[in-house]
């Protein structure tokens, strides 16, 4: 295991200590480094709280900041935060307008957010929940509620954050976020495994010339393991699954996210994007917004994912809105 760390046990907390030392824009509450909150709360605004396992930077905590979300309960590597921690973050970010819980579809997280929501209710904090489930590979059409949440949650944070920044009420923020959720699809492909520090060895093996299409960000198995193919072919296979369950029409607009899983060079992400742009062009679909880089990683896993949000007139300006967090800046437009 080749990682820059001191001890596997201290991995998450020393990372957080580094983040707080680097970025005065964020802080923590309840005396717990893992209860991560914005230092610039907006009075009267709906709070947005996320949470989940560590090991996916900038997901999840990286989206806490101006114009995006307000707090994040930080779990151990690939582990849910506790309901107590979620509750503490909830109490801290609540500005009287209630709190949206927005996180990925994993059993541990669901159970802990549910528990936290029950506890928050006892403290008279209203909560609503939207659970990201964009990973097309993880279940079939009709069983979307079983799908995992992966990089596409970025769009949900963006939409939710912009809606909340407009001072909309909780129900509206939740409705809009849920619409973004329903219109977001992601396909991933992995080339190498990653190592959870406390485990110390890879969670799975993959051959020197193999790729796994549809693999999850914790190494969950995908749709097919195949020999690595030319980049355009890989994109075609991934986009085929997305096109199969979306109804893009000529003139429609989308936002695209090309996400590196951790060890894939940015050069290669642009080669993937090129093909996505060609496929969209062929369909007469405009890529109105696009981001390339690392948005939801699996530590040192090699691979990439493609997320597409089908825009509409309500979502487009929210996705375009400016935001600034320590990990992600968008100047707007």
């Amino acid at each position: 295991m080749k990682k820059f760390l001191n001890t596997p046990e201290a991995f998450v907390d020393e990372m957080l200590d580094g983040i707080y030392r680097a970025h005065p824009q964020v802080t923590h509450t309840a005396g717990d480094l893992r209860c991560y909150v914005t230092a610039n709360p907006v009075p009267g605004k709906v709070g947005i709280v996320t949470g989940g396992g560590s090991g996916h930077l900038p997901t999840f905590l990286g989206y806490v900041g101006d114009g995006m979300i307000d707090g994040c309960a930080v779990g151990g590597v690939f582990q849910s935060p506790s309901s107590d921690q979620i509750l503490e973050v909830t109490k801290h970010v609540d500005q009287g307008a209630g709190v949206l819980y927005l996180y990925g579809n994993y059993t541990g997280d669901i159970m802990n957010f549910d528990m936290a929501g029950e506890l928050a209710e006892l403290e008279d904090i209203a909560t609503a929940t939207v659970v990201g489930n964009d990973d097309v590979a993880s279940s079939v059409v009709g069983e979307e509620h079983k799908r995992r949440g992966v990089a596409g949650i970025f769009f949900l944070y963006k939409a939710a954050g912009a809606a909340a920044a407009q001072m909309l009420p909780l129900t509206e923020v939740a409705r809009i976020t849920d619409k973004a959720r329903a219109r977001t699809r992601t396909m991933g492909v992995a080339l190498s495994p990653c190592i959870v520090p406390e485990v110390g060895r890879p969670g799975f093996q993959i051959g020197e010339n193999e790729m796994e299409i549809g693999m999850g960000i914790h190494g969950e198995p995908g749709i097919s393991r195949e020999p690595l193919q030319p980049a355009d072919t890989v994109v075609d296979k991934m986009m085929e699954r997305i096109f199969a369950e979306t109804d893009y029409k000529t003139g429609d607009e989308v936002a695209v996210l090309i996400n590196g899983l951790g060890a894939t060079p940015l050069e290669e992400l642009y080669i993937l994007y090129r093909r996505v742009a060609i496929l969209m062009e062929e369909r007469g679909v405009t890529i109105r917004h696009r981001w390339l880089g690392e948005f939801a990683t699996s530590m040192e896993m090699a691979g990439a994912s493609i997320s597409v949000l089908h825009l509409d007139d309500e979502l487009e300006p929210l996705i375009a809105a400016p935001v600034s967090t320590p990990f992600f800046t968008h100047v707007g437009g």
Partner: protein
Amino acid sequence: MALTADHTRAFYTAWADRFAAEREALIALDGQVGDSDLGITMSKGFAAARDAVAAAPEAGIAEQMKLAGGALARAAPSTMGTLMATGFLRGFKALDGADTFGTGQAATFWRAFAEGVAQRGKARPGDKTVLDVLDPIATALDGRDDPLADALEAATVAAGHALEATRNMVAQHGKAAAFQEKSRGLPDAGGTVAVMLVEVMRDVARQL
């Protein structure tokens, strides 16, 4: 012989020891159709439960369960950690005020535990989860009036059979669900933890 709060205290040390010893085995088991964290979360969670109970020498039988549940929830908020936490907290509610822990209390505890897990996890029998072992444990204890060690021996046997039976199931929840048919043939990882839970309780009851 029914146990007192001084006796039940020994459960938590024994669980902590057992899950420390099983750390690598559970990592490997969860690694087959999951994310390899089960050995880490169970050893951490039960160590925290042991410490929480040890730090409260006055705590009664039910309170020990509450302390253990809270510690598990904080130290191991994974799927199984949270389910185990829920189970212990339900045990606490069901046995609140109990002075002894005999066969009747054990039956109450395991039934409450299983029901809590079922509600929290929303799994159904046959879904290849810890519930497929917890439920048979509770059923095995239902209405018995033999000594605790004997009753727990019967529950342990039932748990072992139930775990074997999970081999033929296909996982419907959590990370294992993605493996679908590949999960067939393997015992459920959470179910394996449940067997260990009841085995350790039996062993402690025997020694006392």
